[in-house]
């Protein structure tokens, strides 16, 4: 039984829960990029929201200052258009009069929606926005639990590479913002670590063949490949790297390998690929991590996206904990979210300003079909292995 | 007085020589016929005069001014109007609007203070289309469309009218009517007419002089009677049997 934004859902919920009437449901709104440019990314986030809502309702509802109330999700399609997302949040707040908000997908959407929630003083825990630009958002209304912010990723990646004895790298970068922002911080960090950049090439988002790029990578003789890629080109890279026999022991892909379709397409061939991500179900210190993973797989039949699904779920957990403490009052909620430490599937989270200062910037590696944290050492679930 | 002067006009399409060293003049007030078999280069010559195609060699002069190198709209403003063998009305406009457009943009816009609509109606009346004024131009019959070509050309207020087979495809009765119309508008608008026509008798009937093109070369020029008796013309035009 999935509970969605339909009236039917609310009715079914009343019958199921039996505790409270539909009027008492806590309405939680968000927009998703159901269509358009970002639509491929949206399901990772939405599945996590829906799983969370189902779990909460199965346990009798969301605890609102001591009282359990069912949750009802209300969402609209923002067509991957940030301006439309802003319009939707305006509607959610003033028209649908939702009690709580969850975040839309992606940096542009977060930043656009930030203006709307700020003007209403409505708190929103963000998730899938990773850019230095998020620090421009005035603190107090929107919080970003991610630790994959480019100015941290660059130095960490360089340090990690150094620690594995990498002396030189070949870099491929998509020209889209997240990749370029990472490149911008990676290059000085590599220099600082004394790692030589043997090749540094950009490519457009609609690239359809990487043969000549990869031939250059091969010819460069670099110790490692760092591809600052998006999902579609991560895919292209993997297929063609295999064809051309790219055999660098250290190969990093920025976004893509955490999606289950990627692992499904390449199987054992993808083993050893390193990627960006700060969550893994194998980290036993985070007690909620494994149960989340299991519940997700049980519900959907495939693994969650280690980045977006985990972040989306975390943001809901934070909201849940904050509401339990502060109720639905926006003022109190803002206060609690800003000051408390939250226990999530990704371990403790605490915000300073808009940023999560607890979760370290980390990297994952595919090992025997499992995604392991391999950097930094204190949260690692496995040792880095050469490909 | 010479109105139109054709000097050494030549035109090549790739290797094909469509016109070769053509020279002649059309005088003010004349009706001159242009005759020749299919592919003789008649329409090409019209297109060169009206500026739709540049000649490969030679010069076209109108009232002494060089026309070659000017755009069709400039040539129109100089006082030359043409019709098309394959009619080209302005689709999506009524018959009246077609003529109004010609009046608006042709050289004669300020020639009269009368409202556009009245002037267009006058012209349509002359060519016998006034009853179809409000019809979409596409709905006209072939003879109607041929008349519209003439009316539109008249609308631009020309001194020289180039008529390209305005009677082709018409019934004998319609041809007779068109001949009357052409004579009437010529007198009324003080026009000089240069006309291409397939049917020799019609052309002879109308023209003061006739020029004959054959494979892009002018082979004869003279009064209809002279042309009818010209040996070269008889050979190439009325069949080689006579020789």
């Amino acid at each position, binding site marked *: 039984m999935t509970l969605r934004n339909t009236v039917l859902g609310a009715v079914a919920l009343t019958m199921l829960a039996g505790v409270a009437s539909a009027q008492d449901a806590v309405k939680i709104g968000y927009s998703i990029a159901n269509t358009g440019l970002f639509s491929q990314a949206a399901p990772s986030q939405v599945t996590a929201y829906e799983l969370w809502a189902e779990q909460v309702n199965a346990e009798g509802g969301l605890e609102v200052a001591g009282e359990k109330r069912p949750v009802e999700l209300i969402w609209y399609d923002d067509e991957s258009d940030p301006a439309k997302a802003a319009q939707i949040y305006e509607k959610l707040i003033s028209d649908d009069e939702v009690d709580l908000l969850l975040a839309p997908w992606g940096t542009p959407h977060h930043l656009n929606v930030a203006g709307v929630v700020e003007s209403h003083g409505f708190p929103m825990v963000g998730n899938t926005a990773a850019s230095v630009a998020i620090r421009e958002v005035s603190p107090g209304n929107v919080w970003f639990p991610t630790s994959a912010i480019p100015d941290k990723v660059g130095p960490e990646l360089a340090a990690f590479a150094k620690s594995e004895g990498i002396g030189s790298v070949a870099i491929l970068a998509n*020209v889209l913002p997240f990749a370029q922002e990472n490149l911008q911080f990676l290059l000085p960090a590599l220099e600082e670590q004394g790692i030589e950049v043997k090749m540094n090439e950009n490519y457009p988002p609609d690239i359809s063949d990487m043969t000549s790029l990869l031939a250059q990578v091969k010819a460069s003789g670099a110790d490692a490949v760092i591809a600052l890629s998006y999902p579609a080109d991560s895919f292209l890279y993997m297929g063609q790297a295999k064809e051309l026999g790219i055999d660098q022991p250290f190969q990093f892909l920025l976004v893509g390998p955490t999606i289950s379709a*990627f692992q499904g397409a390449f199987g054992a061939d993808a083993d050893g690929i390193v990627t960006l991500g700060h969550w893994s179900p194998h980290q036993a210190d985070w007690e909620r991590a494994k149960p989340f993973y299991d519940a997700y797989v049980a519900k959907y039949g495939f693994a969650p996206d280690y980045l977006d699904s985990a972040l989306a779920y975390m943001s809901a957990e934070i909201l849940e904990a904050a509401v339990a403490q502060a109720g639905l009052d926006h003022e109190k909620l803002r206060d609690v979210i800003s000051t408390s430490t939250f226990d999530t599937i990704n371990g403790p989270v605490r915000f300073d300003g808009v940023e999560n200062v607890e979760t370290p910037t980390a990297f994952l590696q595919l090992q025997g079909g499992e995604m392991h944290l391999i950097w930094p050492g204190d949260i690692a679930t496995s040792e880095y292995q050469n490909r | 007085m010479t109105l139109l002067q054709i000097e050494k006009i030549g035109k090549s399409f790739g290797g094909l020589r469509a016109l070769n060293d053509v020279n002649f003049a059309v005088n003010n007030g004349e009706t001159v016929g242009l005759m020749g078999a299919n592919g003789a280069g008649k329409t090409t010559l019209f297109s060169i005069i009206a500026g739709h195609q540049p000649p490969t060699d030679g010069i076209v002069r109108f009232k002494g001014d060089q026309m070659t190198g000017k755009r069709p709209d400039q040539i129109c403003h100089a006082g030359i109007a043409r019709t098309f063998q394959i009619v080209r009305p302005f689709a999506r406009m009524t018959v009246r609007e077609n003529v109004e457009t010609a009046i608006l943009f042709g050289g004669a816009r300020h020639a009269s203070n009368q409202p556009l609509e009245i002037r267009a109606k006058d012209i349509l009346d002359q060519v016998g289309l006034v009853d179809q004024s409000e019809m979409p131009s596409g709905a006209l019959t072939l003879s109607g469309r041929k008349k519209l070509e003439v009316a539109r050309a008249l609308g631009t207020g020309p001194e020289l009218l180039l008529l390209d087979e305005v009677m082709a495809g018409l019934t004998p009765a319609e041809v007779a009517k068109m001949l009357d119309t052409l004579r009437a508008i010529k007198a009324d608008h003080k026009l000089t007419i240069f006309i291409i026509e397939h049917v020799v008798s019609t052309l002879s009937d109308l023209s003061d002089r006739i020029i004959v093109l054959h494979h892009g070369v002018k082979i004869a020029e003279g009064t209809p009677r002279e042309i009818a008796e010209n040996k070269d013309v008889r050979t190439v035009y009325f069949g080689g049997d006579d020789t």
Partner: protein
Amino acid sequence: MDLLLSPQLLFSALVLGSLYALIGVGLNFVYGTIRLLNIAHGDLVMIGAYAAFGLFTALGLSPMFGLPLIAGITAMIGAGLYFGLFKRQLENTTSVEQLEANSLLLFFGVSVILQNTMALLFTTSPRAYQHLDYVISIGGLDMTLSRLLALVVSLTIVFAISMFLKFSIYGLGISAIIQNRDAAKIVGIDVGRVQLGSFILGFGVAGIAGALVSLTEQISPFMGFPFTIAAFVVIILGGLGNISGGIIAGILLGFIEIYSVALTSATYRSILIYGVFVAAIMLRPQGLFGKAQT
């Protein structure tokens, strides 16, 4: 410079080019010949890709054996659209401009419906499967089997189609219609049947292209648009309705893309592709292989 001469690059150019040719051929049937601005073409490629994915994951059937079935599915969609939407349009609309405008809108609607229906049925999550991804090495040339098969299948189909058009009655009918629809009617060609044939062939070929794409790319309901663009670029370069011109243009585009990237930088890939395209139309508005109109 060694790179430019490597067989690896040549192979990639052929794979990409033959796929462009295949996608272009499909659109040429619908747009080139009967002037329906099919901006849903890439969405049929998407349907073909999902069909291949579905056959493989649900039944374990290799897309290579499933090709006729996949082509059948998209061809049926084509036939359905012809009878449901376009037959009347083609019969009743007199001006080409009106037909183009209306078909643009109709196909826009079809595209939106196809994309979103697939999103509703299968979610927007990207999908992929592992199949035929062994690498074969022949004399220093490494080829992924799926890419090699994509090349072979694409070339076979475009070749077969151009032969079919050259030597069959249907092919004559099509070229007659391209030149003059009314005249074609007069000489006794059943224009309706030829149009239906164009839909079936065009959509069927799009489905096959989709199956081949699914072997090497991740698929999602909104993946079609770039293929639509590529198809338009190809058939415009080749000359509208010029089937063999389109095939050559497709392969040429693959070569331009691969070798220009190798010569300059991947950064310029899209600029080069569209730059060549824009320059080609401006300089030769009738397509690279079209005859100049007088």
